[in-house]
């Protein structure tokens, strides 16, 4: 919904040195061709050593304000050949903000003066799809909950202000959680401080819902079972791109597969621009197969029609449709291959066992004792992240583990994976993901029942409830959004009190001319902002609610980062390899 272009439109020959992490998000808003129009001659990725030769006057560093990156830049600058002519000019562009700390650091290294310009490019919210915005701030959750560093919330609030400037003041703000409260406060304050910013844009959004990730720690831990969710769980989607093992994309098949060497991973972009993907991305994986086979029939039938084309006119018409059909066919071939890859994994014994345990926990079975499957996985040294996901899931579904069980797990993990992981366990404990049951009471069953988090009769093919995205479990966060729209949070006051952080409502006054007169049958639009990350399955669930005929509410989603259980836990793990300097 928001279109953005890079700010660096220098009109002199220039080279950009990219912080690799930024290339993904920037790729979403600007193509190389666009940069080329603005005289960008060369692009490099940031790495230590001497900068590559390039016949340009200006070198621009696009970086996040991180100290380790500053060290690399310092190295680059110091190795620059001073004698060469013409001398190259350096510039630095911080995304999303300049940081005093970084500049101070550069200064201490004695290179700050080498930069002619130091600027910032406030890329707050990056559009990922028609209904999805992300800040792609990887460490937001960790910073907020472990380091009490709420800078990312400040950025979120700023991003929201920008959004309001473009799409109108949002009259109603709801929120749940400590961070949500902070963001709302900051927004209100920012508005007060710039009274002139009262804009005259007709509001697009009716409601803003701010949700803390720590209100719903459960959802990201469970394995997502939508098509897109599974692609992300298994292969990891980075900035809408996914890299897949090439074997299934043999060159003989249609599509771009032919260009790749079979050893290189196949890279595909996934977004709603692809008709087929838009249709299947949010479906439960078990419902994807039938759609794919139906499509296959339609396409082959369409190709068959060439035999019936008799007259020149008919042939001409057929030929004119060919490009579209070819595209559909290659898209179908790609997704059939992806579905095959995923099916290999979802039908494996271990996937099944893992899912069974997850579902037992979420439906409240045996959450208060040490689980055999988890013990087995530890003994077989399965990846630590998998173990942590399961243990945390059990802890969350039991409002904390019994001290004895917790100690047992901790011991097993430390002995098998190394004592240094005590730091990671500590982080998880601090984030509330892994904890001893302190109150002696398990609130989860009450929450589960009141919010109907577990549905036994789930319809994966033709869903009638959001629980289809996890084949039984309805994501808590989305349930909160759903109940807010109807009948309102007042009905679940008790449960809201059991979840961490305050819940609140704020109103922002609109000038009388801009107040919406709702037509009958017109949908309300709610912006849901997940502070600390959101999963693809949650997005799918919200899209499902948007599409419900009698839903009455459409959702647009914003977040600090698109996450899955693995990437999320990883962001909370202590980096164990020693620092590079």
């Amino acid at each position, binding site marked *: 919904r928001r279109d953005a272009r890079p700010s660096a439109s220098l009109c002199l020959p220039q080279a950009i040195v990219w912080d690799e992490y930024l290339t993904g998000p920037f790729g979403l808003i600007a193509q190389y061709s666009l940069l080329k129009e603005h005289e960008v001659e060369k692009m490099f990725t940031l790495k230590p050593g001497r900068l590559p030769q390039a016949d340009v006057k200006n070198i621009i560093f696009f970086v996040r304000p991180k100290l380790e990156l500053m060290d690399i830049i310092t190295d680059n600058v110091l190795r620059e050949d001073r004698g060469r002519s013409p001398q190259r000019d350096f510039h630095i562009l911080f995304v999303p903000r300049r940081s005093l700390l970084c500049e*101070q650091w550069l200064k201490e290294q004695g290179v700050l003066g080498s930069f002619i310009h130091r600027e910032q490019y406030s890329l707050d919210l990056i559009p990922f799809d028609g209904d999805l915005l992300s800040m792609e701030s990887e460490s937001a959750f960790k910073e907020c909950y472990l380091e009490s560093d709420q800078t990312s919330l400040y950025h979120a609030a700023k991003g929201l202000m920008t959004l309001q400037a473009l799409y109108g003041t949002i009259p109603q703000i709801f929120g749940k959680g400590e961070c949500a409260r902070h963001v709302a406060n900051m927004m209100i304050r920012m508005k007060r401080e710039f009274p002139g910013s009262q804009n005259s844009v007709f509001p697009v959004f009716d409601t803003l819902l701010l949700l803390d990730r720590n209100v719903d720690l459960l959802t990201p831990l469970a394995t997502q079972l939508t098509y897109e969710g599974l692609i992300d769980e298994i292969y990891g989607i980075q900035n809408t791109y996914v890299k897949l093992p090439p074997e299934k994309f043999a060159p003989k098949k249609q599509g771009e597969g032919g260009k790749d060497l079979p050893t290189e991973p196949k890279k595909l972009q996934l977004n709603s621009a692809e008709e087929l993907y838009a249709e299947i991305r949010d479906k439960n994986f078990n419902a994807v197969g039938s759609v794919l086979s139906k499509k296959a029939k339609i396409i082959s039938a369409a190709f068959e029609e060439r035999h019936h084309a008799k007259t020149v006119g008919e042939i001409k018409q057929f030929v004119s449709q060919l490009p579209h059909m070819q595209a559909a066919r290659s898209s179908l071939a790609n997704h059939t291959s992806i579905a095959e890859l995923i099916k290999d994994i979802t039908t494996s014994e271990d996937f099944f066992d893992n899912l069974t345990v997850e579902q037992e926990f979420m439906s409240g079975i045996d959450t208060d004792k040490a689980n055999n499957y988890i013990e087995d996985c530890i003994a077989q040294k399965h990846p630590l992240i998998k173990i942590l996901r399961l243990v945390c899931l059990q802890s969350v579904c039991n409002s904390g583990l019994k001290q004895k069980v917790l100690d047992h797990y901790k011991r097993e993990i430390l002995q098998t994976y190394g004592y240094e992981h005590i730091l990671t366990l500590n982080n998880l404990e601090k984030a509330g993901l892994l904890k001893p049951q302190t109150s002696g009471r398990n609130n989860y069953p009450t929450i589960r029942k009141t919010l109907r988090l577990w549905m036994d009769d789930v319809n994966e093919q033709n869903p009638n409830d959001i629980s289809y995205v996890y084949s039984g479990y309805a994501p808590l966060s989305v349930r909160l959004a759903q109940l807010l729209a109807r009948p309102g949070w007042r009905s679940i006051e008790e449960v809201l009190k059991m979840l961490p952080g305050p819940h609140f409502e704020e109103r922002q006054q609109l000038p009388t001319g801009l107040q919406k007169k709702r037509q009958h049958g017109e949908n309300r639009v709610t912006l849901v902002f997940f502070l600390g990350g959101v999963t693809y399955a949650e997005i799918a669930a919200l899209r499902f609610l948007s599409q419900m005929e009698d839903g009455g509410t459409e959702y647009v989603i914003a977040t600090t980062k698109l996450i899955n259980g693995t990437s999320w836990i990883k962001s909370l793990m202590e980096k164990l390899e020693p620092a590079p300097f």
Partner: protein
Amino acid sequence: MSRARADEEEYWHSSKFRAFTFDDEDDELSQLKESKRAVNSLRDIVDDDDDDLERVSWSGEPVGSISWSIKETASSSTGSLESRDSSLQKGSSSYAAFPKQVSSYSLSSLFKGELPHTQCGQMALSDTGVKNYAPELRRPKAEYKDYSSDWSPKDTVRRMQRGKVCSLERFRSLQDKLVLLDEAVAGHDGNVITAVLIFLKRTLRREILFRELEVRQVALCHLIHFLKETGEQKLLLDLLRLCFFSLSLQLSQYREHLNIQDVEKRREFLKGCIGLPFSAEDISHIQDHYTLLERQIIIEANDRHLETAGQSEIFRKYPRKASILNMPLVTTLFYSCFYHYTEAEGTFSSPTNLKKTFKIPDKQYVLTALAARAKLRAWEDVDALFTTKNWLGYTKKKAPIGFHRVVEILQRNNAPVQVLQEYVRLVEDVETRLNLATKYKCHDVVIDTYRDLKDRIQLMAYKCKVERGSAEEEKINSILNNMVRN
């Protein structure tokens, strides 16, 4: 608005001047001097009050010259920090893809292409108007020398949030400084909080700073993070020592061991950690960590010697792939089961000693030992692992992990069928037993199980799965015959 702009320019001066020095003199000495000066005083960054030297822009022209001001105005008209932030909107349609005609100006103008045209209309308007008269617009230096003096802590923080530089020097009393810090914390902007903390760190006595931070957790976390990032170990450790009040901080001292490469030093460091006031539970883990590393150092020295000497058969046959240092406990146990299985309990490297010292549970121990011995194909050791004698001297097979797991592990290590079937037979659950036996082709077990179940039909069916004329077929036939007779 113009005041803000002047201030903006002011900022560019202060940083520009230094930039100039750099570009012109690149001999290392002056650089060193410069950086030293920079290190010594943060003031230079934050200071409003520029040096009394002649103002020179980065292109080397004296400030105020016409060519200079054209560049300057161009840059400020295309969007100062102020305008960008105050408008709070930079957006879509308005992302100026910068028109070519601007290219006659210097880089600075184009660099700031993100000025939102529409939203800050007023601003842009006045700026455009100003463009032609730029030289006159410069304000006398004196005018912006003191305009900052009356900013409240709140305003100061606001300004800093907008990316502007302002002097913190005027916050002299402790009271003022603390108000400033609290304001910064209330603003939730880490960048500003850190800046204020750097100022406090420089201007307050350490004890006072630490004391005040103790009651300001958020600020404390920021300072710790800052010190971590900048690698000021000594101050960090001092701080940690003084402020032991939450679990999370205590562990950050322990965390330091990861940065120590040398094992001996690491061991010493861990030893030091034991004395720290961690929670009882953590202390036991850290104690174990220390003990383990201590062991590993001894074992490593010993085994490296053995290996190079080439005397020991096991090391000749199975050279070590990596050093055992810094490996997890279970890996160490595996290693010791592999290379030191038969050693007496008294030696540090014996598995039983490890088991005792670290109170390794039976299950864990058996699993590890089994995997290690199976890898060496030492089937007798495997057998011994599960054999227990009761007081009458009868032997009995028992496995704390369940025999189906034993079978899996053995199978993974390519155990021969004879060995495998012995354990498949011991699986208690009939269905699991049948499954495993069929899967791993332990025909004898399958046949015997069906016999015990008196399942003629299955037995007949199984006949086609064994080789023609083999002993197994014979056996099935004889059982079938017996069954008929009974």
